[in-house]
């Protein structure tokens, strides 16, 4: 595994581990409720009622990093779920079915009080219903109407003009669903939801994302990137899953400070940085060493992924008179923003220019549907902007069928041409 250059990165990992141990203790010993949710859920509602959440995608990444995915997914296939089904969002279900706390990351997932997901792809209701049945816990879905009005440069509107950006009827509908979800959470916790508490959390999220915005700006401007992409992801996501909390805000600030120190002292992540690479798509969680594999020979450094950049553009909401509506606006369009034209291609090209990107690697996940769409538009837009593109065919969690050596070879050949 690549060295960690930032103290913050180590602290983020330690905190996650301690947080999860505490969660297990609270659930097992104090019977406290927690929830398993899709990454694109309004985590803030759960936090506002003190229900900790484990995100499906985070857990999948943990399982993949422990190289357990092939074994778990084989188990899922053996039960009759064929191997053409999508894997990213079902790996955690597979880990529950495998049921081996001894091997599972950090002792495995305890039984949640609730599972919840936005119904984006057609399969997710199935994954979560199956999972909820296995865990003998209720499943609460949020249905997801499609966006139909999409002004291309959404990130210029999302902070202040979010109320116009995301279509009134979709926001109204999401808020109505939030009310039901809140009732469910109140039932589970016996507590009463407070709008003021939510507003305070949302303000905290804004503050946290402003720190990330500063980090992003430093990466854009510094002669060489002060922080590698993979360390960006670790720091950002550790805070995002707990967004708005005291720890998350403090961590975002500490991350900003440490990056600033490096910039001020002229310390780059990779002194031989010579090519700035962009990673488009979810992370390659089963082979994260891939992200540093091209530094030595080519000075090719990954400087960008969506994880840091999406924080400020996707999450900041100013004007919190109606915090539920603001939260709805943060929730309704993740998929369109990250994976669909025109929003994904326009944003990624803008990001590439701002980050002085020399070449882009685009994940083409054959076994994962929503993140597999929009890619051809993204690739063409990057190429039209003069940025060469290499598609990387791989699954983000499933190492079966992944030939790391061969793919590295392909990247070498690609970089020779850049």
């Amino acid at each position, binding site marked *: 595994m690549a060295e960690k250059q930032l103290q913050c990165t180590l602290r983020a990992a330690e905190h996650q581990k301690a947080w999860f141990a505490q969660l297990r203790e609270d659930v097992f010993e104090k019977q406290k409720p927690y929830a398993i949710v899709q990454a694109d859920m309004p985590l803030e509602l759960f936090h506002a009622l003190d229900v900790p959440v484990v995100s499906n995608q985070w857990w999948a990444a943990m399982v993949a990093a422990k190289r357990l995915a092939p074994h778990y997914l084989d188990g899922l296939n053996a*039960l*009759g*779920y*064929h191997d*053409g*089904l*999508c894997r990213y969002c079902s790996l955690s279900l597979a880990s529950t079915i495998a049921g081996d706390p001894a091997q599972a990351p950090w002792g495995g997932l305890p039984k949640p009080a609730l599972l919840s997901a936005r*119904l*984006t*792809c*057609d*399969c997710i*209701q*199935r*994954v979560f*219903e*199956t999972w909820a049945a296995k865990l003998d816990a209720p499943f609460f*879905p949020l*249905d997801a*109407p*499609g*966006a*139909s009005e*999409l002004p*291309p440069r959404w990130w210029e509107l999302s902070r202040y003009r979010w109320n116009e950006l995301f279509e009134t*009827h979709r926001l109204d*509908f999401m808020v*109505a*669903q939030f009310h*039901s979800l809140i009732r469910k959470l109140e039932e589970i916790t016996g507590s009463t939801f407070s709008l003021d508490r939510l507003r305070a959390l949302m303000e905290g999220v804004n503050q946290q994302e402003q720190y990330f915005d500063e980090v992003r700006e430093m990466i854009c401007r510094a002669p060489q990137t002060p922080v590698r992409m993979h360390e960006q992801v670790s720091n950002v996501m550790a805070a995002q899953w707990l967004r708005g909390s005291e720890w998350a805000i403090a961590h975002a600030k500490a991350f900003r400070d440490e990056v600033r120190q490096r910039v001020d002292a002229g310390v780059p992540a990779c002194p031989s940085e010579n090519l700035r690479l962009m990673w488009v798509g979810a992370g390659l969680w089963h082979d994260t060493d891939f992200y540093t594999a091209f530094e030595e020979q080519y000075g090719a450094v990954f400087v960008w992924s969506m994880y840091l950049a999406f924080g400020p553009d996707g999450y900041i909401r100013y004007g919190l008179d109606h915090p539920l509506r603001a939260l709805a606006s943060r929730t309704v369009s993740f998929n*369109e923003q990250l994976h*669909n*034209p*025109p929003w994904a*291609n326009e944003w990624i090209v803008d990001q590439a220019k701002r980050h002085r990107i020399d070449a882009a690697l685009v994940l*083409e996940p*054959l076994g994962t*549907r*929503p993140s*597999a*769409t*929009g*890619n*051809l*538009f993204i690739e*063409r837009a990057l190429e039209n902007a003069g940025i060469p593109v290499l598609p990387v065919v791989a699954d983000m969690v499933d190492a079966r069928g992944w030939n790391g050596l061969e793919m590295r070879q392909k990247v070498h050949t690609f970089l020779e041409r850049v």
Partner: protein
Amino acid sequence: MTPAISALTNVYLQRPVRQRDRPLIGITSNTVPWELIRAAGFDPILLSPGPQYKPSAEVYLETVFSQRIKSIFHFLISNDSALLRAVVIPRTSEQEHKLYLYLREVVRQGVEQAPQPILYNLLHARSPEAQAYGLERTRALQFTLEQLAGHAIEPDAFSAAIAEGNAARCAMRALLQQREGPAPKLNGSEALALIGARYFMDGAEYALHAQQALQEILARPPLPGPRILIKGPPIDTPDFCAAVEAQGAIVVAEDDWWGSRAAGRDIDAGMEPIQAIFEKYYFDAPSPRVFPAVVADAWFQRNVSEVDGVIFHLPQEDDIIGWDYPRLRAFLDDRAIPHVMLRDTSPDEIGVFVRRLENG
């Protein structure tokens, strides 16, 4: 073949997008309210173009898209789609929402032309919020169609469209009855054509032909062979049924909108029209997004007791029904109903299953 049967079969096989009396509006699934489009003065037509529209090199749609969606997209950006005033795309599958976004994008970028896409945000989860939202989006679709037509929909137009749609359903149900019970008279490959033709025709014309076809079918002797129900992604060609029937079985039902579930119940003509139309499509139209599973599975569970065996047909591009398969399989096992799962059309595997059923 009588003229009626061959007329319906030809329409089904050719799926023509041709000029008709009224301006045409394309639709992409069973969940777009035919009656609403018709009442606004248009001829709705299901888009189901053949492989001829597939380009040699795909530059827009990633490999994860189904062949069906790819063909529709490429038809819509071809010159042949100029006949359409618009295309209504429902939020009935994730791929259809993407189809909508991609169409808009190629037009926005100025690289292709396409008819105006209209997104019909009908949701399929059963919740008070989704129901209220769907009703409101159906009213919004009415408004959009009225704008396109340049006039409001009169009450008479609603009544006429609903009556026409219901007449077609009634004729279709009469045909479907000939597949039911211990002595079916209509095999699956023929039935799919007689039912599916509806999507490419006028309701009234369809009803007339279907009634004539029924007369001939009634006079036939029952068909021998084990009776099969097919479960899988919707089958929009007769090929798979034909492969099963070549082995001596009779396909008597498909749990999808191209087959046994095409008609469903009538639209309530006594209700406020938009409410009635919405309720039909929200509560009674199959879609991969119907939630929860108890609702989505209800038809399957009711109908499997009427057949001798079930074939799960999960072709390579399936990424949805595969999630339902282990659950539905367990349901059949509990009731000792024979079943098999096939990922392709292998005559040998089908043959083995049919022999098993024949030998009881």
